[in-house]
């Protein structure tokens, strides 16, 4: 073949070797084999899924840590609760001793009131501003001091409420009973009146949700009045009734009602793993062995001075301690589960990082050797060009 000029070929070769050198250099400098999608479209697409999984794993790890902290706070509250209840048992045992006199028993009852206040504090524990024993109602304290009588803001001689007064459809009125530890929630439908609410309360009393004697009446001031001797907490968002508030001086000593709900919030810590992060306060403090009720009972027994009653009430608190221990088990199990999930996620992260490195990362030894080879090739191309370019017949003719 007749060769006319070597310049285009040399330029092409130099260009090619420089491109290879540039690629090798970029790979070593970035640590990545795939710097743009077109370097390996398939690996780039797989990276999208891998990075999405990675982001989920990172978030699950953060959620795990946050849930663990929250549940450890709940667990601490349980610890304190057990300590408080054990103190109450000691006080009760002391009070049941027939040698104790009335004055001592009153002093013991006062101590126990302090313990009850502590327990309410534990029941209203917050984590980062949210009440952890309120179910999904985390914005307000779940345990509220109960009163015997609540009246509506609306209703007057000029504008009286009556059994026939229509309620606002969709509005919610709830009555939390300190004695039963349960809550009646009445959601008004179209056409419901105060009489409907009164009937619902009567049904709740029959069902045992509310204590016997809980009634809703229209008082002398033409307001709706809801009352219960054992103590209740009433709330309503019905504009017809206005807000419900406790009548001054009707608070019941040592009685607290649960105004939270029974819902459980969960946190996702794995693709198909959700962990319950809260224990609704009613299951711990008012239902079952009724922790709060047993403490109130012991206070009353100490104040009454009957050793048999004190003994029985102390036994009730002992039962409550065991009940609390039972309730604590699922919580502790969840903490254990969160710890093992954290280890799993950390391992998963390592696996994903390895996968990502193999998808788009470089093998350093191979990339370094490629770089050396590319440098060598480039130098050779330049040296060959430098050697060949000045060669011309004219050069020799001039000599």
């Amino acid at each position, binding site marked *: *073949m*007749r*060769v*006319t*000029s070597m310049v*285009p*070929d040399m330029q*092409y070769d130099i260009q090619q070797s420089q491109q290879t050198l540039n690629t090798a250099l970029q790979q070593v400098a970035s640590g990545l084999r795939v710097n*743009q*999608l*077109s*370097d*390996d*479209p*398939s690996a*780039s*697409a*797989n*990276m*999208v*899924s891998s*990075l*999405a999984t990675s*982001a*989920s794993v*990172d*978030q*699950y790890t*953060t*959620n795990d840590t*946050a*849930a663990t902290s*929250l549940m450890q706070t709940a667990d601490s509250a349980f610890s304190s609760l057990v300590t408080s209840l054990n103190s109450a048992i000691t006080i009760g045992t002391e009070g049941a001793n027939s040698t104790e006199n009335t004055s001592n028993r009153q002093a013991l009852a006062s101590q126990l009131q302090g313990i009850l206040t502590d327990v309410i504090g534990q029941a209203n524990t917050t984590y*980062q*501003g*949210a*009440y952890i024993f*309120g*179910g*999904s*109602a*985390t*914005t307000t304290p779940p345990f509220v001091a109960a009163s015997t009588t609540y009246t509506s803001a609306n209703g007057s001689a000029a504008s009286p409420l009556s059994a026939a007064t229509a309620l606002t459809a969709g509005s919610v009125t709830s009555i939390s009973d300190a004695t039963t530890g349960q809550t009646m929630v009445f959601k008004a439908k179209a056409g419901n009146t105060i009489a409907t609410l009164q009937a619902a309360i009567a049904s709740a009393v029959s069902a045992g949700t509310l204590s016997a004697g809980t009634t809703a009446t229209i008082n002398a001031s033409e307001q709706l009045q809801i009352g219960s001797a054992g103590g209740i907490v009433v709330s309503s968002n019905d504009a017809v009734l206005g807000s419900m508030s406790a009548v001054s001086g009707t608070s019941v000593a040592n009685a607290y009602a649960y105004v939270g*709900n029974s*819902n459980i*919030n*969960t*946190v*996702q810590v794995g*693709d198909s793993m*959700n962990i319950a*992060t809260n224990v609704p306060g009613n299951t711990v403090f008012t239902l079952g062995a009724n922790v709060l009720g047993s403490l109130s009972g012991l206070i009353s027994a100490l104040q009454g001075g009957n050793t048999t009653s004190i003994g029985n009430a102390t036994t009730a608190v002992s039962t409550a301690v065991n009940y609390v221990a039972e309730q604590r088990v699922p919580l502790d199990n969840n903490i254990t589960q969160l710890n093992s999930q954290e280890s799993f996620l950390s391992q998963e992260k390592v696996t994903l990082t390895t996968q990502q490195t193999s998808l788009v990362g470089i093998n350093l030894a191979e990339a370094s050797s490629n770089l050396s080879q590319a440098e060598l090739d480039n130098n050779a191309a330049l040296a060959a060009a430098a050697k060949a370019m000045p060669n*011309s*017949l*004219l050069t020799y*003719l001039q000599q």
Partner: protein
Amino acid sequence: MGSLSTSLSIAVQSLNAASGSLQITNNNIANANTPGYSREVANLQEGPSEPEGNYSEGTGVVLAGYQSVRDELVQNQIQQETQSQSQANAQLATMQQIEPTFTTSTDDIGTQMSALFSSISALSTSPTSSSARQSVLTAGQNLVTAFNSASSTLTTQQTSLNTQVSQDVSQINQLSQQIAALNPQLVQAQATGQDTGTMQDQQDQLVLKLSALTNVAITQTNDGVTLTTGNGTPLVVGSQSYNLQTETGTGGMTQVLDQNGTNITGSIASGDLGGTIQTRDTTIPGLMTQLDTLANQVGTAFNTAQAAGTDQNGNAGQDFFNVPTTVAGSAGAISMALSDPAQIAASSDGTAGGTGNLTAFSAIQTAALPSGKTPSDAYSSLVYQVGSLTANANAESSATTASLKQLNDQLASVSGVSIDEESANLITYQQAYEAAARVVSTIQSLFSVTMSMGTAAAE
């Protein structure tokens, strides 16, 4: 028997031949680096012999003219390959502009989608935290920005390609006119036996430029070269050139029409115009549809999840995103509908601290959209397509570049100027000239001797 005058005449012809050859060597050296130049060689022929009794005598050398050394077949292959190269380059240039938008970064769609799902997951640990709620809104807005920005990149590229169509058509018309103008000159020069090398080079270069713009079929006729594009639309026939026209079609896209007003946009297969039209009308709309579908379906899925829950104030969840009713244009038009962090419908039981409905949001990440793919899979499929289109255009561009280099080497081996060869020719013709000059000088001295013979006899 030949006379001194005959010898002198032969020597003068020799001088002419050597001088002419030197001139053509000079011209070759001068044009050694001129693009498209085909080397020329002197056509030296032996002079007709003259009978002298029983034998005949040579009459020297005749410079019959110059001949351009060409290989039309390779030239034609170069033109064809140039069409493919320009098409691949047009596609590559656009895809390289689009590629970074879909490359994993801090603000690409994939990253922003993951960030949105992470922010929702984080909200489940503190549903009443206003900063956690604000994070969800911010992540939602970032995803909207990523969709809008990707859509804008595709639209901008499409608009810029649309402008390129008009520019290409204008250049094609200009080149067609120049090629057509050369046809009669070439035909006339060939008819009169003139050297057409320079004109041929000029026309080949123009056809090459035209090949870089569109697919061109070349036919040699008695009236010169005939060029057609598309599926046979004439551009040049003899001395006549036919201008392509443009008109604005659906969606503002410039359409290419032949001289009769027939739309030939779809039949422009290669060259810059072919690559530009293909990228504008097929590649980008394909990507845009996938992007719009993803934006529309993800947006709708979030709105459905919102509607299933209640916000922090106990109200039924409102739309999360403003999603257009039609899929087309969704990625560009999607926007945030929520403005207040409290409006995120995290709760399923109406309480402010409820997180029951967040699972509906999280489920979007793993559930198949109406397209049959999860959001992440749909996006990774889009990423694969962008990467694959760019890689294919790149490979095609590299392959045609290598192939063109090969063809150019082949053509240069025939038509290219070798400085070494021309240097040797220079010496050869210089020596030939010197030798012929010596013959003239010898004949001159012979003439002098002959002339002085008479003078000496007289003395």
